[in-house]
C-alpha cells in the first residue's frame, strides 16, 4: 500500500492521518477531481474514477445544499457493510481541497472524523503559502487532470 503525492508538502500530514485513522484508501484532490495525493490505489484508472465520482458527489451535495438553503455540508458519511466512506472538503492556503477516505471495520467513523480534523489543521500549516495554485487554463484542462495521474504512478 503505497502513498504517493504530487505536491510534497501533503505527504507528512497524509501519512500521519492514515496511521491514526487506519484508513484503507485516501484521495486528496481539487474540487475538479484532480488528484494531489493518494494512498492505497494500485491502478491509475481506479484512482481516476474514484476522484471523478468523489468530486461529482461533492458537487451534487453542494447544489442540493444550495436548494435547501444550506451554505454547504461539512462531511458526507456513507455507511457500508464492510467499508465506510468519509468525504469532506477543507479550505487551505492553496485553495479548497476534497479528501475521500475509505475505511474498514478496524476503525470507526468517529475516529476518522476526529483524525480528519487533525489532518486538515496539519495540511493548513504544511501548505507553502507563497505560490497559490494557478487556475487550470481552459484549453489544457484535460491535460492537467491526467498529468497528476501520470506523476502519481510513474514514480
Amino acid at each position, binding site marked *: 500500500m503505497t502513498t504517493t503525492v504530487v505536491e510534497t508538502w501533503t505527504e507528512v500530514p497524509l501519512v500521519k492521518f492514515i496511521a491514526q485513522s487506519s484508513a484503507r484508501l485516501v484521495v486528496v484532490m481539487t474540487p475538479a477531481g484532480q488528484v494531489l495525493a493518494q494512498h492505497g490505489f494500485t491502478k491509475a484508472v481506479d484512482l481516476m474514477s474514484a476522484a471523478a465520482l468523489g468530486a461529482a458527489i461533492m458537487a451534487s451535495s453542494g447544489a442540493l445544499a444550495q436548494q435547501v438553503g444550506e451554505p454547504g455540508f461539512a462531511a458526507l458519511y456513507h*455507511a457500508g457493510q464492510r467499508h465506510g466512506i468519509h468525504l469532506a472538503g477543507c479550505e487551505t492556503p492553496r485553495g479548497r481541497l476534497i479528501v475521500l477516505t475509505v475505511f474498514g471495520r478496524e*476503525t*470507526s*467513523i*468517529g*475516529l476518522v*472524523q*476526529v483524525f480528519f480534523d487533525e489532518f486538515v489543521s496539519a495540511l493548513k500549516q504544511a501548505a507553502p503559502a507563497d505560490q497559490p495554485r494557478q487556475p487550470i487554463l481552459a484549453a489544457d484542462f484535460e491535460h492537467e487532470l491526467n498529468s497528476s495521474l501520470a506523476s502519481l504512478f510513474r514514480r
Partner: protein
Amino acid sequence: MSDVFQHSLDRISRVRGVQGSMFVAAEDGLAVAQLLMAGVSGKVLAAFAASLARKASGAAAATGAGKVRFVQMQAAGGVLLVALGGELLVAVVADAGVNVGLARLEMIRAVDAAAAL
C-alpha cells in the same frame, strides 16, 4: 428516548469527581447523548471510548473471557470508565479521586436501561 439518557447521565454526574459522561454508539464511535463539563471534547471521548471498548472486547474474546461488561483505564491525571451494553455504551471521564464503585453501579444501570428501550 432522549429523556431516558438525560436522566441516566444526571444520576452518573452526581457522583463526585465525574467530569463528563456520555452515551456512545459502539459501532460508529459517535456521541448519542452527553453531559460534559467545559473543556472535555465529546467527539474525542466518544471515538476513543468506542475504540477502547472494541479493543477490550477483542482481547476478552481472544482469551475466552466472554462478554466485556466494564473497562477502567487508570491514568496519571484521571480515569476513563466505559460500561458496555448492546449497541450503546456509557463512557465517563473523571479525575483520579472518583468513587469508581458508585460510578460503575450507575453506569451499568444506565447502559442496561438504554439496552431495554
